[in-house]
């Protein structure tokens, strides 16, 4: 029915559209090879043209690689890691949260104790420890990030389940002989899921930042594969000479994260309205 977007939604959509162009459209264009080194073209500024006539829209890095194509590739890597990690944590968190909330008792105590334990260990420290042992890889990074960030989904899902399980449509179903699996699948999951998507859009931003910080520390994505965090780390040595090396990936990171934050807020507002109506 409604075709109009709220201001918040509009901003979120615009920001994410910019990111979509960078991550999806740019790689399709005839751009330079992100791995292609050209030492003679190194450290060109934004819009810089080399002596042999190569044009670099966003300049080049220390090894003369095209910043635009590296930024796009890094964006793909980050988004991929972010989405898979969110998927992993969503599945774990929702499952544990629904189980804890529906069955209560010792099961709930164990699951929520696990959540507390998880929160009491600093996540970055844990990630550093794990990557140090297992060794860094894109898939590994996604799984580790996912497994360690289920708590917010679990908490919210449990909280909602606690109030939903006393709602009369669930009591009715129980009286009619519905099993726990039936109630969780038919009633709880569909009612909890919209809220979970809000949590997910918020968590996505967190995970992207976390991945960037790990890569910055050299524990995340490994070269020659680029990552925004790694690009910032490389660029910081040249802040005075070529500030765009560190600034460009930072801006990209900022746009993606703030876009998802706004999206999450827009979702929240819309859902509040639905509850009132």
């Amino acid at each position, binding site marked *: 029915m409604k075709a109009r977007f709220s201001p918040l939604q509009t901003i979120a959509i615009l920001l994410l559209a910019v990111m979509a162009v960078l991550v999806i459209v740019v790689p399709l264009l005839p751009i330079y090879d992100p791995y292609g080194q050209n030492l003679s073209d190194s450290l060109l500024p934004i819009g810089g043209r080399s002596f042999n006539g190569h044009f670099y829209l966003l300049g080049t890095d220390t090894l003369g690689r095209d910043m635009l194509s590296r930024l796009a590739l890094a964006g793909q890597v980050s988004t991929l890691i972010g989405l898979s990690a969110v998927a992993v944590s969503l599945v774990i968190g929702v499952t544990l949260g629904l189980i804890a909330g529906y069955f209560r008792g010792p099961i709930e105590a164990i699951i929520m104790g696990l959540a507390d334990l998880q929160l009491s260990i600093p996540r970055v420290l844990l990630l550093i420890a794990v990557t140090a042992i297992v060794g860094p890889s894109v898939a590994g990074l996604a799984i580790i990030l996912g497994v360690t960030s289920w708590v917010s989904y679990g908490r919210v899902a449990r909280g909602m389940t606690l109030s939903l399980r006393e709602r009369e*449509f669930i009591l009715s*179903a129980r*009286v*009619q*002989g*519905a099993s726990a699996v*039936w109630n969780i699948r038919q009633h709880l999951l569909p009612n909890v899921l919209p809220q979970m998507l809000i949590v997910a859009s918020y968590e996505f931003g967190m995970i992207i930042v976390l991945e960037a910080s790990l890569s910055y520390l050299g524990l995340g994505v490994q070269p020659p594969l680029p990552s925004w965090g790694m690009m910032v780390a490389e660029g910081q040595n040249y802040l005075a000479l070529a500030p765009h090396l560190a600034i460009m990936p930072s801006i990209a990171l900022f746009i993606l994260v703030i876009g998802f934050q706004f999206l999450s807020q827009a979702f929240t507002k819309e859902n509040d309205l639905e509850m009132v109506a």
Partner: protein
Amino acid sequence: MTDAAIAAEATPTTALDRVPVLSVHNLCIEVKTPDGERVELVRDVSFDVNEHEVLGLVGESGSGKSLTMLAVLGLLGSGLRIVSGSIRLRGQEITNLSFHEMQKIRGKAVSIIFQDPLTTLNPVLRVGKQVAEAIRLHNPDKGEAEIKARVIELLSLVGIPNPERRYSQFPNEFSGGMRQRVVIAMAMANEPDLLIADEPTTALDVTIQAQVMEVLAEVRARTGAAMVLITHDLGLVSEYADRLAVMYSGRIVEQAPSAELFASPRHPYTAGLIASLPQLERKVETLYSIPGFVPDPRKRPTGCAFAPRCAIANGRPLCLSQSPDLESIGANRAVACHYSAETAAWSTAYQAKLENVATETPLPVRKQGDGTTVLRASNLSKVFTVRGKGLQRSKLYALRNVSFDLKAGKTLGIVGESGSGKSTLARVLLRLAEAGGGEVYLNGSPLFSLRGRELRQRRRDLQVVFQDPYSSLDPRMKIHDVIAEPLRIAGSYSAERVNQLLEHVGLTAAAGQRRSPEFSGGQRQRIAIARSLALNPDVLILDEAVSALDVSIQAQIINLLKKLQQDLGLTYVFISHDLSVVRHICDEIAVMYLGRVIEYASTEAVFSTPAHPYTRGLLAAIPRIGMWPHGKGLLARGDLPNPMKPPSGCAFRTRCPMATALCAENEPVLSDHAETSHLSACHFALA
């Protein structure tokens, strides 16, 4: 502003005592929907409230009664707007006042008491401070000690014991009735000229309601404030209001002095409402029910808004084409109906029909079971352990030795105030909560030892309809799927069965394709009933199943339940706090107090010769049409005692007008006192 209002403003007020306290003229309130559509919610409403008078504003939900009074307070929410009309408070026009000017009037000249004392009071502020705030706002120069003294005076005025100690307590240390007294104290703090009471006792138990209304009458008598009493409860207004205005779909349809209105209603809606009230005094086979439901303000019919539901309109062209104006008929009376002259004849004819049914044909014999016991509860008990401070644990006896025996095709009423354990009983019967002791036998076999699959099979014979029609349906599901759910669980789904069930409860198969938010409360309750019937249960537990519904809708659902019982041979456990409804539908009644059954007998016996003083107190506390003043001596005093620390001996003795030393020592057993099978638990049970 209308011409009349401007004219009135121009002429100086001559005698102040002739000026009504509140005078509302041609008030129209509009809401702007998100789609930009403008909808009139209050239409051309005019009324006066005179000095010392109580005006009852009656109507079903959505009639615009609360909105009208919020407009008087200048508290209309965003999106709502006064389009035209005037509101004068002691002759002063207030519709054009600024927010600041209005603030000076609110709480000073006019104040309001809301329905729910739990949300009216701020839970983190001490009660005394909150009352003091009401005083300080309008008397900034008063000293701290002076204000405190006034607060304590106010608290004792509204009947709060130990006001000095209560002053520094928090709202959670007060019971519901006591909280509402605090709210009354706040409202009366500046001795306003006009008090607006918006459903002031709807959230309270009936014995507490009587006490609170009493307090309200006392403080009004003292300050001489006029009052507007907004309520859906016709019995309540008939006792406490001098004059009534009945609202329907945003308009006032009838205005009359209270006694005259009930004696001879002139609008068919008023007549229908009165006819659809279950009466305490007598039992009828079917209640009158106004067909249909209140129209959506966006889709009001042309002509008279009530015409589609009216027993008199009969599709007459005038009713369908032209909306009747509120016209004065005789002194102090006005009605908005083209054919108001015919209402009296309709009422008489309807009454005659009822009496004919009552005298000529004794109640038709129901399709009854063979007198076998379907549901038997024996010595049910349930104890909750409540955590206190630190390691303290106290026990709350929610059920104590509850037993009953229910025959096929009969209805057992479980009656009691909140905290009496009636809802716990429902949960224990349904095995939604585990009992601490005792056993339930369904069709002769015990229920409590069942586990897993066996339990899921057997509990299908015992179904439930809950109170809240809004939370009992999954908002994400289509109605067809809601009703199909039990069938799908049992693996016996067929679309025809679902349509048949919809038809049983008076809905069409087409309704199944819509989702629950599109339905009104009464329709949702029909859907919940259809779902509970899906697996052909023997027993239906109706947990306050009609309590949340408007009067006209309540009558529809009660009639539906009675019809279903006859057609399907169902057995009901009817849990309710409303004795007049219970009287109407039940064969036997068990009255509960603090987890215990204190009287158990046939409906006739309970109403004609109530044996327990608590039952008599309950009966006396029910406001009813034309029965003022009620037997005050019978009213239960004070509040329900703390269930964690029940009084020694008889739990009711602290509130009982008859209690003696014996009552504090021995707990009376539930036993026969007079004729057979009239059980009561009182040392002084009346024969």
